[in-house]
């Protein structure tokens, strides 16, 4: 449970449950603040209600609904909105798009009668029928290819991998057809598919159910990859991905499905290519995505107590990177820490490190540091599993090291 402090003037509902309210951001107003002023903190996902000492809002700040495209959060100002869990947000987004366009359909294992193994498609088969919410047999390669063929001929399928790891079986179709077919056909056929599913390290799910496929897919030309982390951006990204003409892979995380947040009643989309500013700061840029965002925010609480001022950005768009938001941040803080759940070798962090070094080398005061999971198959034992992924304590240590 977390609480959020915010400026005196803004009226927002406090959420009493887990999530990080990504909406509740401080607008950057750097000019009239001293270098180390204490600012807003968006508290992490742990149960603590304590705020750091000496924290107070400097002045009333405008709330930013989503990242760089500074759309004001109307629901916050008007006080309406509804609370739901992340999987419900995904379902809502999907349902709205299916209502809006009859060409949108879902296919995957157990998406229909079972309602989805994480309940994202619950109730949709009753509403839309067995053909629009198709229960497929267990043949990832074939049904992913079927979705691609359907997309080429006019439909807009949302293909669910019951676990992202299963999509390894569909790699042939995702790489060759999903990614490349638009190009090899000279632009004649579009593949407006959304491939989505839960991935990441869960709670003792074992090595094969704890995979991070974003690192394997990132080289495929022609696809976009996004990772959602809050109910707000989950719904927004789902809708944007369905409406996009490009094939989009939407990475959800097994442990984030029960996050609760209040989201606007009115329709909204998140931009697929933009990153999300979670917490503006001055000292160091921390780039993260998906579940690690919460570890970072938890570490941020500790860091703020220790007097640091981290800027946390949820990169959200894993391919392509939003170099504008990232670049502005690097130019401001001159120090970068990447915290990711991918493995050390060849992960998203590795690519991001390369991109930052290539584009913003002159602005860096220290080498880019990247905290990733260990290069091991995720062990079953709880203690071992905890040591494979990055924990908040490690993040704190890394920041202290970088900021010396």
């Amino acid at each position: 449970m977390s609480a959020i402090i915010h400026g005196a003037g803004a009226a927002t509902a406090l959420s009493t449950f887990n999530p990080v309210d990504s909406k509740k951001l401080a607008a950057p107003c750097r000019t009239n603040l001293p270098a180390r002023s204490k600012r807003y903190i968006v508290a992490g996902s742990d149960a603590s209600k304590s705020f750091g000492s000496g924290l107070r809002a400097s002045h009333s700040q405008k709330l930013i609904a989503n990242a760089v495209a500074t759309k004001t959060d109307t629901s916050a100002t008007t006080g309406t909105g509804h609370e739901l869990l992340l999987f419900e947000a995904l379902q809502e987004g999907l349902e709205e798009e299916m209502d809006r366009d009859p060409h949108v359909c879902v296919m995957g294992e157990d998406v229909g009668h079972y309602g989805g193994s994480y309940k994202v498609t619950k109730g949709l088969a009753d509403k839309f029928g067995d053909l629009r919410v198709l229960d497929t047999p267990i043949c990832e390669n074939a049904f992913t290819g079927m979705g691609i063929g359907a997309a080429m001929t006019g439909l807009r399928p949302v293909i669910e991998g019951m676990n992202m790891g299963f999509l390894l079986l569909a790699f042939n179709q995702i790489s060759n057809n999903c990614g490349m077919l638009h190009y090899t056909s000279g632009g004649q056929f579009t593949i407006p598919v959304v491939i989505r599913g839960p991935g990441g390290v869960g709670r003792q799910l074992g090595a094969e159910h704890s995979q991070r496929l974003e690192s394997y897919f990132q080289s495929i030309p022609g696809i976009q990859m996004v990772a959602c982390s809050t109910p707000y951006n989950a719904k927004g990204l789902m809708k944007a991905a369905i409406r996009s003409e490009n094939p989009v892979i939407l990475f959800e995380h097994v442990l984030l499905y029960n996050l609760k947040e209040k989201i606007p009643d009115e329709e909204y989309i998140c931009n697929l290519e933009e990153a999300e500013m979670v917490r503006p700061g001055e000292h160091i840029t921390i780039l993260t995505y998906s579940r690690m965002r919460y570890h970072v925010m938890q570490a941020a609480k500790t860091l703020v107590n220790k007097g640091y001022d981290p800027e946390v950005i949820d990169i959200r768009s894993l391919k392509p990177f939003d170099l504008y938001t990232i670049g502005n941040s690097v130019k401001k803080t001159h120090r970068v820490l990447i915290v990711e759940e991918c493995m050390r070798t060849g992960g998203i962090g590795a690519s991001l490190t390369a991109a930052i070094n290539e584009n913003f080398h002159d602005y860096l005061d220290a080498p880019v540091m990247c905290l990733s999971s260990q290069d091991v198959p995720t062990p079953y034992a709880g203690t071992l599993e905890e040591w494979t992924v990055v924990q908040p304590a490690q993040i704190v240590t890394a920041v202290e090291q970088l900021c010396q």
Partner: protein
Amino acid sequence: MATAFSPTKLTATVPLHGSQENRLLLPIRLAPPSSFLGSTRSLSIISSPRLIHANAARRSPVVGVQEVVKEKKATNSLLITKEEGLELYEDMILGRSFEDMCAQMYYRGKMFGFVHLYNGQEAVSTGFIKLLTKTDSVVSTYRDHVHALSKGVSARAVMSELFGKVTGCCRGQGGSMHMFSKEHNMLGGFAFIGEGIPVATGAAFTSKYKREVLKQNCQDVTVAFFGDGTCNNGQFYECLNMAALYKLPIIFVVENNLWAIGMSHLRATSDPEIWKKGPAFGMPGVHVDGMDVLKVREVAKEAVTRARRGDGPTLVECETYRFRGHSLADPDELRDAAEKAKYAARDPITALKKYLIENKLANEADLKSIEKKIDELVEEAVEFADASPQPGRSQLLENVFADPKGFGIGPDGRYRCEDPKFTEGTAQV
């Protein structure tokens, strides 16, 4: 060396599912287990065991057909009219001439890479595709030039694509193995074997979806062509299952030319009779002589009608042969000369010519004029391709994304695709 398995005399003929023959109502007998064990010689009708299934919709017996024998009608009428005959002849001559020209151009250094020619198999392409409408879809493999031509893609577009020119059907970006045409619903052209079959299943799914969800009057069928080697690949079986399960309007056409590069079909397959695999999944399996365009056409008619009717998929195995090697880089030393000679004698074009002349549907002059016309067409296609420009630098990054915003936001805050250097192809991505 292994020779082609040829169907021995059948004990009984069973027509394709859907015909009015009442032989279908005979009780299905289960084949004795021993006949399934890899035997190639003893061929008897294998009927699928009746599907004991909760799903009542698929009660009707599904049969495999070894040899399709049409009952001769009393008037001994012909299988085709003169117009149809000439159309078939022209299509096959186009396929043959085009592929021969490809070989010439390849050895002259006009096209590169892997080029797989279709000589000898024209009956399959012509037999099936000439029955399709423009909105029906065709999915092929890397041996796709002739499928594209039969479907209606112009020889100019295909030749330019092979030369890698901008005027090619895929703007020079696809090449020999990726012939696509949105206009003619040619859904490719795939380099990996088997990867086109799910795409074809998807196209058939769209057809069913349009009918049942969008309530449109969609009668489109999809024909998927692939080879004997593909029939040992998982994707094939996964799609047979789904197509039969969802009763998709698709026809799976196996172009069994007995060789997968240098691997004989008999050395790679535990049960080489591919048509038998259809009934195992709940669809009819038919074996047909793929060197005879008229036989192929008759089988195709039934299969396409069946699909349009909504009765689901069919598996058609066409026994055929490629006269050339696997690709232009294949020296083709492994195949037996006797085998090649045997099939050369069954050249589908010669066979059709003989049929047309013997049945007085056309005379030598008609056929010669067609051949001349096609020669000129192919020559003109080469000239056109030669004269066409090569793609410019600016084309490099086009078509990677349908929505070029997918290239992302650059450090300056603008989308990369808005950068004027982007179209020049000199921007850093």
